[in-house]
Structure formats: C-alpha cells, structure tokens
C-alpha cells in the first residue's frame, strides 16, 4: 500500500515538475505577457507607463517577415511604441487570425494575406474604420506617393478601411530563349501598341508550340492564367458580377455566370488548350511543375500571363526572360488584374492610433525602398520607391518593367478576390467545378449554370 502511494506521489511530483518547467520556459519573455500588454494597455509595461505594444500579424515567409528588420529604427523614432510580429504559415493564416480574435488576443495590424480577402474581413466586421484617424492625423496619400485610385480600392461608402502598401499587377513574362529558337521578335512592353492583341499572341504561340510524345520535348506557346477563374471573362469585356458589387462592400445583387457573353469568354480561354492547342492542360502543368508550380519556370512555356510575383524568382530561372504588356483582348478599359495589398487595422485593436503610426512608417518612401531589397522584390505602391523596384531584376530592362507596370495600372482592375465576400468559398467552388472542363470531360454549357447557382448560394451565406 505504501509503495502504491509512493508511486502515485512520484507521478504527481513528476507531472507538476514538468508543468512548472514548461511554464518556466516562457519566463519573463512570455508572449502571454506581451499579448496582455498589447490588449490590456499599460498594465504590464513596468516603469514606462506610456509604452504600448502593437502586434503586426503576417505570413511566416521571408517576403513578409522582413518587417522585423524595420522595427528597431521605428522603435527608436517612437520610444512609446513596441512592435511585435506574430506570424503563421500561409495555409493556417486565416485559422490563426480567427482564433486570435475570438480568443481576445486580436492583432493590431495585418493584411488579407490568407485565403480570405478584404471584402470577407469587411463583411465579418473585423476591420477598424480609419476615416476619422486619417482626418485627425492629417494623413494625405499624396505625401506617400500613393495614387488616389489605389486609395479608393479599400474605401467603402466613403469610409476607409485599408491603406495600400504593395501592388502586384498582371504581366506577361516571356522566355527569350524560346523566342530566339523560333526566330520571333519579342512581344512589346507598350500597352498602346495596337497590334498586340490576343489573336496576335495566339499566332506567336503556335510558332513555339511543340507537342510530342516525348515529354521532355513538349513545349507550349502560352499559359494564360489571367486573374482568378471567376474574373477571367472581364478580360474579354464580359462582366459576371453586377455593378453594385464594387460600391456596397462586395455583395453582388446579381451574377451572370451562365450568360452567353461569359460562356463565350471562357470558351476563348479553353480554345487555347483544346482548339488552338497552344496552352497546356492542367494535368500537363502539374506533371511538369507540381501541384501549385508554374511550368514557365521549367522553361517549357513561351509566354506566361500571370501575377507580377512571377518576376521575383526571375534571377533564378535557368533561361533568359523579358516582360511584356498583356495583349488587348476586347476590353478597352481592363487588361491587367491589380493585386493591391492594404495594411488594415483590426477592429479589436486596443491601440489603433499607434498602429496607424506604424502603418505610416511602412509607407514612407525611404522604408518602401528599403523593403524592396529586404523582401526580395515586393512591389511598393509608393510611385517614387517604384523606380527602385523597376531596377531590381537582373537581365530585364528596367524601362520595360516600368512601361509594363504603368500600362497595367492604367488598364488595371483590382482582383475580385479582394473585393467579393466569401471569396475563399467562391474560389474553391470554381476550382472544383471547372476541373472537368479543364480536363475536357465536360462542356462549359453544362458547367456554367451549376456555377451560377452555387455562386448565388455562397454569396447569400
């Protein structure tokens, strides 16, 4: 019996010891304390009662966490503000954010870096309305060289909820080696070149396409991944969402995914794969580049239309590349999707004013210029800092990058994934429903009515 007790006591003692040791691990540096400071104000801040800690929540990847390197300078200039960076991998970004907010540990500053876009955050009432703060602080976007058009993206019903910090556009990357081998002249970087049309692009693509039984020899002329799937009809001038979507916070009163114009637009894109045979199907792309990879990187695609983030890896590509304008596809206003990332203050932030100070700091020309190098090529919204960005890529003419960026902004439209509510669900649904069309097992006429029905349901959720 005594022995029994002894065993029990030993077990309890061991467990207590482990628990104490593990809590000890956190010691004085416990983020529980830091988070407490951030949320509970000055309670734990010790002698300096004015000091507050704000949390910047971001993705745990080098092109995002570089902001940690900007903190010391900021804290020197603002001795009353401490900045803590909280991070999560891409896939868990949204789950952690929801959990932090629900658990009363809301970060102060973040962006829509996960699957959910701005409209989703706005409609879930997660965002702090910055309008009064902007007035109070006398913040002018022109002081930070942010174009007015970009400021409007995150303004809903005259209230501002986000301030742009980075801007990706859609552009064409082309493989110079493949163009040289086919003895073709390079595509233009000038958006005003009237000869540069979708049809002209297909003709060029045909000259570079080689379809062979030998997978190593197969190559395609073009890979047209313009925007997310639901937005692609816009390139040809067909608008699937009703006009009110862009003014009411991303809740369309109507959608037209089964309209003949939208179906015809999608048809043109699928013709690239099945009729003209100048684009790879999704299976081929996956076999060459992996699940989320880009076959352009493997040197098997002549022209790739996609987000300008593809440029960031350019220095590692095993072939020479150039940038060009997205050709005209039938829409005189829109030829490029813009992906403008804003900095947002969350509604549950206890220190919006200090968070705003941090945001302003990140937007200054000097810091935006520094961020390009530190992040490995994130494009700034600050037009002055953008000049540094244009020169960032080895072997690509900065004048071309500049022309392509300026044209893309002139003919740009903000990506729907930032503007439409419940977007992550819409996007998932699109990927699943479009799959049989991409593999050639179903026709658009069969699939689009189903998509139309499902989009309507998702928006109503």
């Amino acid at each position, binding site marked *: 019996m005594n022995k029994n007790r002894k065993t029990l006591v030993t077990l309890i003692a061991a467990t207590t010891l482990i628990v104490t040791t593990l809590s000890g691990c956190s010691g004085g540096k416990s*983020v529980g304390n830091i988070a407490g400071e951030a949320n509970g104000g000055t309670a734990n801040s010790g002698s300096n009662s004015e000091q507050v800690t704000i949390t910047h929540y971001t993705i745990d990847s080098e092109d995002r966490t570089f902001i940690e390197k900007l903190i010391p300078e900021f804290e020197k200039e603002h001795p009353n503000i401490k900045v803590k960076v909280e991070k999560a991998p891409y896939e868990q970004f949204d789950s952690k954010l929801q959990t932090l907010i629900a658990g009363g540990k809301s970060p102060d500053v973040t962006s829509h870096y996960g699957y959910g876009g701005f409209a989703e955050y706005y409609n879930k009432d997660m965002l702090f309305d910055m309008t009064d703060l902007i007035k109070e602080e006398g913040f002018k976007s022109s002081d930070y060289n942010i174009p007015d058009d970009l400021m409007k993206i995150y303004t809903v019903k005259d209230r501002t909820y986000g301030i742009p910090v980075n801007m990706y556009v859609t552009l064409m990357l082309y493989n110079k080696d493949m163009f040289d081998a086919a003895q073709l002249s390079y595509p233009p970087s000038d958006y005003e070149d009237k000869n540069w049309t979708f049809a002209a692009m297909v003709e060029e693509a045909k000259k570079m396409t080689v379809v062979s039984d030998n997978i190593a020899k197969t190559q395609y002329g073009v890979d047209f991944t313009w925007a997310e799937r639901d937005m692609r009809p816009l390139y040809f001038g067909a608008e699937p969402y009703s006009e009110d979507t862009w003014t009411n916070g991303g809740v369309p009163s109507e959608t037209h995914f089964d309209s003949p114009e939208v179906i015809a637009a999608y048809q043109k894109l699928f013709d690239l794969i099945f009729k003209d045979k100048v684009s790879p199907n999704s299976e081929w792309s996956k076999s060459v580049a992996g699940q989320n990879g880009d076959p352009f990187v493997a040197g098997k695609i002549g022209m790739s239309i996609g987000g300008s983030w593809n440029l960031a890896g350019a220095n590692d590509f095993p072939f020479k590349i150039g940038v060009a304008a997205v050709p005209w596809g039938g829409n005189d206003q829109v030829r490029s999707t813009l992906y403008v990332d804003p900095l947002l203050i969350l509604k549950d932030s206890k220190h919006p004013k200090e968070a705003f100070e941090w945001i302003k700091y990140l937007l200054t020309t000097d810091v935006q210029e520094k961020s390009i190098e530190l992040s490995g090529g994130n494009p700034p919204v600050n037009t002055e800092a953008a000049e540094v960005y244009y020169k960032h890529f080895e072997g690509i003419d900065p004048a071309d990058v500049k022309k392509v960026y300026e044209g893309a902004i002139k003919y740009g439209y903000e990506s729907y994934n930032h503007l439409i509510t419940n977007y992550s669900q819409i996007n998932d649904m699109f990927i699943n429903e479009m799959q049989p069309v991409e593999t050639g097992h179903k026709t658009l006429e069969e699939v689009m009515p189903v998509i139309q029905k499902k989009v309507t349901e998702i928006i109503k959720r």
Partner: protein
Amino acid sequence: MSILKATSSRPSVSRPRPKVEPVKVFSFITLVVTTFLMLLPLFFMVSTSLKSKREMLKFPPTFLPESWQWSNYKDIFDTLQFGTMYMNSLIIAGLSVFGTLLSSALVAYGFARYRGKGNQFWFILLLSTMMLPYPAIMIPQFVLFSKMNWIDTFLPLVVPAFFGSAYNIFLLRQFFTTLPDELFDAGRIDGCGELRMWRTIALPLSGPALATVAIFAFIYSWNDLLTPVLYLSSSEKFTLPVGMASLTSSRFRIPPWHLLMVASVLAMVPIVTLFAVAQKQFVEGIVLTGIK
C-alpha cells in the same frame, strides 16, 4: 587412387539442388519490385535534398544530382533556426509520449479491470469525444489556455496529453482485457494494490500495445502543425512543422524544395529510430515475461 575415389564419391554426399518453386520466385520478384516502388519517393526526397536550387527546377527532373550539394545540409541551419526547432519538437513530442502513455494506460486499466455501474456508458462517452473534430474545440481551448496565460509556452501542446487520448485508451483497454485474470488474482494474494498491479503486471505485459501507443503519440505530436501555429508566437519556440511550413508559405516565390527535402530527411530520423527501437525493445519485453 583413394583420392580419386574420394573425389568421385563427392557428388553422392553433396546436398541436392533446392527446387526452384515458381510461386516463390514470383512472390520474391513482386516483393522486390514493390519495395523499389515504395522506396522511390524516399529516393527522390534524398536525391532532391542534394540538388542545387537551379537543378531543382529542371524538367524532366534528374534522377541523381548533377553536382552533389552536401552544403544544403548546412544551409538549412542558416535558413531556419533548424536546431532549435528540432529540439523543441523533440521536447514536446517526448513529453507528449510520456503523458499519453501514463494517462491513457491508467484510464484504460480502469476501464478494463473494473466492472462498475455505468461502465459502458462512460466508455462510450469517452469514445464519442473521438468524433469531435479539432476545429470545433480550437477556439474554446484557446480561450481557456489564454486565460491561464499559457500562450507562447509549450504547455498547451503537452498538458492535454496528460489527460488521456480516447483512441489510445480504447487501444490499450482492448489489450488489457486480454490479460488473464489469474495473474491479477495472484498479484492480489501476494498483497499488491491496484496501482502496483498496473505497474508490475499490466504494463510489463503490454509492451507491444504501449509501443504502438508511443509511436502513435510521437508521430501525432511530431507532425502536428495547427496547434503549435496557434499557440506559439516566438520564433525560438517554433517546432519543426511550423518552420518547414514557412518554407512554402510565400505565394510569390519559388519554394526552396531542396532545403525542404533536407528538412524532411532530417525530420524522418527520430520516427524511424523510434520505430526501430520500440519494436525491438517491446518485443524483447514480451519474450522476457514468458507469456505467449
């Protein structure tokens, strides 16, 4: 002459050539081919871990690295705080295994040995907790641990293991019920209390089951990504899966697959070691007890 005789008589004493059985040959070839197929992903993992960043993008991929980049195995330590993350994962997984074994074995013993009122009901209630998906308890649990000021400590990752795990309790309970009652009767006659019988009779006889639970608990904790992501915020406390996920987290960059493969090769080491050790140790354990 005699030598000649002896030599010539040799064929008669030599063993007959074993008969080649076609079925056996077929199974042997099938097994070898299947083994190679199964090992192929592993081979590519190791091979990619030794390729350069540029070679990694090549298509069709090269089977063996063109130039062997052993430095990748050093680079991973510069890219991530790999050593720290490895240690953190080991500490958390080690304590989780200890906690799971201790708590699950105790509870399972209770369910297997006691025939009380409502025994079945409690057991079903316990099993029903297996139906609860983690996202359903994620937020309430986070609120609880944050009220206890456990955020950014290892506690939320380790302490729950000390409160049993339904699946492992079920597994151990099934095993404990197969132990003959006579052993426990003999123990009682010799003056053993329940806790002592648990420790000196039930546990030593349950080597294989405990090994299974230990392996499950270790793998679960070692691979767990969501829980550390939720509870840990300081980089120096991150576990291996968190660090590895960060390598593929950028939507805008080509992931360093070669480094990720280095991390995967190194991350596999403890699991393979544990599997080998646990198998051997516990199988020996059961042989020593003399029960078959």
